[in-house]
């Protein structure tokens, strides 16, 4: 059973449907015991960092996720959920994330070439930085669907895959049992489903 952490950010319909498609059982939950009982955890998220970080903190679910990560349970953050795994972000004032991975979440503004649109919306190619079981069913250069204005910087050893948008942006990260995708696997067609399938098999 995979627990999809419901902390009030974003639409979880497609995530549930995509796991169902790859034959995995999920539960959308904000209950501590359910998250503790789950074999794996998905931390979703759409919207602004500050608001999501506050909801994770105030609901107490951030602590639960951190404790489960420390126990070695596989955890994958998706989009804003991935950004939550880092130390901090300065979107609308500086806010702390869960700090499970080293690095900061910063704006693309002023980093990517002027003239490129922000948010970075659409299908872009994944470039692997290193091998990882999450990618066992996909290939270098496969396209995935992104929607974001901020990205994780200085990820150091957790950096797993990048994408090009004027500059190089972090697309996926992993360190031990803690993983994250900046793109939306649940919206990335077969490629995305294959990443979720690989996550289920970890």
């Amino acid at each position, binding site marked *: 059973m995979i627990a999809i952490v419901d902390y009030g950010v974003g*639409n979880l*319909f*497609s995530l549930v*449907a*995509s796991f*169902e*498609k790859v034959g995995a059982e999920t539960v959308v939950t904000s209950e501590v015991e359910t998250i503790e009982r789950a074999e794996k955890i998905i931390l979703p998220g*759409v*919207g*602004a960092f500050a608001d999501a970080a506050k909801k994770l903190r105030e609901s107490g679910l951030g602590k639960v996720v951190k404790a489960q990560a420390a126990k070695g349970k596989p955890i994958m953050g998706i989009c804003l959920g991935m950004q939550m795994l880092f130390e901090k972000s300065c979107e609308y004032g500086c806010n702390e994330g869960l700090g499970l991975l080293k690095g900061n979440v910063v704006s693309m503004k002023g980093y990517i070439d002027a003239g490129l*649109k*922000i*948010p*970075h*919306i*659409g*299908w*872009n*190619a994944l470039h692997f930085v290193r091998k990882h079981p999450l990618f066992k069913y996909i290939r270098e250069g496969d*396209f995935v*669907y*992104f*929607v974001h204005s901020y990205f994780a910087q200085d990820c150091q050893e957790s950096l797993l895959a990048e994408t*090009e*948008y004027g500059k190089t942006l972090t697309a996926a990260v992993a360190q031990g049992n803690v993983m994250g995708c900046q793109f939306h696997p*649940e*919206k*990335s*067609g*077969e490629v*995305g*489903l294959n990443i979720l399938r690989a996550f289920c098999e970890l």
Partner: protein
Amino acid sequence: MITKRIIPCLDVKDGRVVKGINFEGLREVASPVDLAKYYSQCGADELVFYDITASAEGRAMFTDCLREAAKSVFIPLTVGGGIRGVEDFERVLSCGADKVSVNSGAIANPSIVKEAAQKYGNQCVVLSTDVKRVHGEFHVFAKGGREDTGLEAVSWIKRCVEDGAGEVVVNSMDTDGVKKGFDIELLKAVCAAVDVPVIASGGAGSIADFITLFKEIPDIDAGLAASVFHFGEIEIANLKKVLAENDILVRR
């Protein structure tokens, strides 16, 4: 780099897909769920479901179709039609939509863009606008193209983007249904005015029209069409192959 998107639009009435020829003379085509699956397999980058039903029963059938489609295709789904308030966003988002497109609803109540963007994020709010030339000016039309609002289109689009619309679909009524190409003049004007993704709609008749669109306007993000895809006049896989041969970056 980011790819150019190809987006089939499914007009849905009473649970069936239709395509208006110049917005009139509606013709029945196929099941929205089957078409969505088919397009997803062909390489469509995204799908738009447009609800053109007026009745409550039709609306319920639409959300059933949407839910079914969102369980079977795993590419972004945008839903439009009958979006009058933030509660309509909730209704379709909870059935699997990723983005919601507002058209007449924003004209009747412009604050809907800001409210929805604050609640769901800019990426969720798509402004869709029907535009037609009136005495040499681009005018915004409401109610499926039946009513001239008198609003100047480029400034209207600009205003909605400032309010939080994260993407814009520009449908030219002058080129829609004519199949002689997209409205390059109008689309260039919109791309010059806003810095969010712009999706071209209305006028696609051949693969060459898509090549012209992306070559003439490098800032255009996507091309949207309906009948040329539904009637098999353009196959998406083939369209993408030819675009790639013409050095236009697409997902394949």
